[in-house]
């Protein structure tokens, strides 16, 4: 695989528009237009497929270093390529925690070596995700990994003063704090969304207010200190309303929603199958509707997978002992098609904005999230929305099989992914 390869993509619908051809050469988009002559270029028949800029995930758990039984940078980036991603942000909750320049550079290098997808490490906000002292944010920013997104994801930076300091400090290098909004005292031992279902199932409730209170506080803090703030995996209707209001007032806040929160609801917990156990928890149909509306009107800026692989033994257990999290890289675009495109809430250009351009902007990632235009980096995904498939985690590239969509039929399929002109996926197969 070398970036000197030349590929002629025939008949792709750029952002869902008319069929056209794209010529990828030298890692860039060389030509766009109907009836291109590729010369000796390898031809990819993409008739019917939608061409989108390579997707960017702001929220991925690659688990390496430390939990290579669940995922590695290699397996996780292959999964990302299969999902149409050309860049992922690797969350900091590894072992050791990515809270030093050394760890983030290690992850960054592993990503370079894999070659399937760019890996942009996320740095921890606090030392060891402990929530008490700031990690060396500047050192991570200045490292070769050039970290711009900082998050204690999995843990909330619940100390208001520490959060204020973090928001202020990262301004020095254009960073952003991505908050995992979860008031810890309100969610001690919490197992699932607090409501009718949790009360019936006798599972400790995880109230919406525990998320909303932190989001409201952090929006006010960010406004006060004039900092950028990003909210991870928004899951409630109330959160959408708070963010909408904060944006209206001019707060520099961005927000993400996961694919699973766009379709799955808390009643799935009735099976007590921890495949549906996730943080933040699945909420109600009312919340799902509000999240879709928020993503459609731009209140929620992006879709981020929160791809959280776990080995089978962490899920084949009783609910309260099970790990929280779901895989998502390889189903994200299909879920978005189902929840947002087929419902008429988003067109493909808007999908490209929310899954490529906006996350790259938030992550300050150059070379990704660019428009499909001549001269731009050839990061392209070809997605065929006309087919459907039954989700089979065993057939996925991820090392883990904890997909909540297993056995479900989802629309669409990634036919090909190009990273700087090199195919990482062709004919639906990882290269």
């Amino acid at each position, binding site marked *: 695989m070398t970036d000197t390869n030349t590929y002629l993509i025939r008949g792709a619908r750029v952002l869902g528009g008319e069929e056209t051809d794209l010529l990828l050469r030298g890692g860039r988009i060389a030509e766009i237009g109907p009836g291109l002559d590729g010369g000796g270029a390898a031809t990819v028949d993409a008739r019917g497929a939608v061409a989108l800029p390579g997707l960017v995930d702001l929220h991925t758990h690659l688990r390496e270093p430390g939990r290579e039984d669940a995922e590695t940078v290699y397996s996780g980036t292959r999964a990302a390529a299969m999902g149409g991603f050309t860049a992922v942000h690797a969350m900091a909750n590894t072992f050791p925690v990515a809270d030093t320049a050394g760890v983030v550079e290690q992850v960054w290098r592993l990503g370079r070596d894999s070659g399937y997808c760019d890996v942009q490490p996320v740095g921890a906000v606090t030392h060891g995700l402990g929530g008490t002292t700031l990690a060396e944010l500047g050192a991570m920013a200045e490292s070769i990994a050039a970290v711009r997104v900082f998050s204690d994801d999995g843990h909330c930076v619940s100390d208001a003063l520490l959060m204020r300091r973090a928001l202020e400090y990262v301004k020095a290098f254009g960073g952003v704090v991505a908050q995992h909004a979860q008031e810890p005292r309100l969610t001690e031992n919490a197992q699932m969304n607090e409501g009718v279902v949790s009360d019936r199932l006798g*599972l400790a409730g995880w109230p919406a207010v525990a998320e909303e209170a932190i989001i409201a506080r952090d929006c006010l803090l960010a406004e006060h200190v004039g900092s950028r703030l990003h909210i991870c995996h928004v899951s409630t209707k109330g959160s959408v309303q708070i963010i909408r209001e904060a944006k209206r007032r001019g707060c520099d806040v961005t927000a993400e929603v996961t694919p699973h929160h766009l379709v799955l609801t808390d009643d799935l917990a009735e099976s*007590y199958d921890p495949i549906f156990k996730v943080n933040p928890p699945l909420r109600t149909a009312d919340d799902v509707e509000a999240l879709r509306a928020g993503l459609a009107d731009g209140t929620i800026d992006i879709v981020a997978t929160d791809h959280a692989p776990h080995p089978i033994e962490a899920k084949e257990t*009783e609910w309260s002992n099970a790990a929280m999290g779901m895989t998502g890289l390889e189903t994200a675009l299909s879920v978005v098609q189902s929840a947002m495109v087929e419902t008429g809430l988003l067109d493909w250009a808007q999908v490209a904005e929310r899954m490529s351009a906006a996350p790259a902007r938030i992550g300050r990632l150059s070379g990704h999230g660019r428009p499909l235009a001549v001269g731009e980096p050839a990061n392209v995904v070809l997605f065929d929305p006309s087919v459907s498939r039954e989700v089979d985690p065993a057939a996925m590239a991820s090392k883990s099989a904890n997909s909540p969509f297993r056995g479900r039929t989802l629309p669409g399929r990634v036919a090909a992914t190009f990273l700087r002109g090199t195919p990482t996926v062709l004919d639906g197969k990882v290269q």
Partner: protein
Amino acid sequence: MRHLLSAGDLSRDEATLVLDTAKELAQVGDRSVKKLPTLRGRTVVNLFYEDSTRTRISFEAAAKRMSADVINFSAKGSSVSKGESLKDTALTLQAMGADGVVIRHSSSGAAKRLSTWVDGAVLNAGDGTHEHPTQALLDAFTMRERMGRVEGLRVAIVGDILHSRVARSNVLLLATLGAEVTLVAPPTLLPVSVRSWPCSVSYTLDEVLPKSDVVMMLRVQAERMKDAFFPTAREYTRRYGLDDDRFAKLHDDAIVMHPGPMIRGMEISAAVADSPRSTIVEQVANGVSVRMAVLYLLLGGSESAIGN
């Protein structure tokens, strides 16, 4: 194979069948030979992940009176405490040919999870803060024995509803059987969505007592105090304890129930616990009869007669 995982799984006819069967089986306890051959050759495993001597003994007595082979598998000192997962334990039980597994577990839903891994019938003997269906059945049985009926009875359930599997199972079963349930607790010990449950709710025990035929006092664990569910044990007792004065407000035929083990003084005064209108001792005896009935109906035939 069918299971008994939730009191809500039982239709009215099925619940009545259990109670009627228990009524007949109660006689076995009075006979010289306290044993029936019905479950001869069947294996019942008591899988107890929580210490609960009384529930385990009750199930053990029930299974033995039906001539089942009983294997007690307690988590302490076993492979479970060495980190074996519930699933691996389930596969072991499966290999041993368990026809029925009685499970007590601290995790809500553990019984349901287990039922997906074994072929035998699973009986939920208490899962976390979810349910305890045989306790609800024995409570309904006790009410029927004392009051002659369950339908139309006004039942007050008092105490830590939020964390009570007994309360959840009782609310479901009593609603199925047509009783009028009122939950009485401080708001902190009620689930947030309790208004969607098939029962009434009150914060004031004194208002509910005179209108109750049955008062069921639940255990309140002292550690709830640490988590600020109520300020002090003394204040809890003052507002929700069944003391002698409150007892006097009950009408003459009303009965007092407690699933045990009780904290005398905090939830219930000693005089009330020992009064002839307290059913605490007969609840224990009825527990064996009801569990015999459930074991028979689940395991006695070619297929279960309940929980369908």
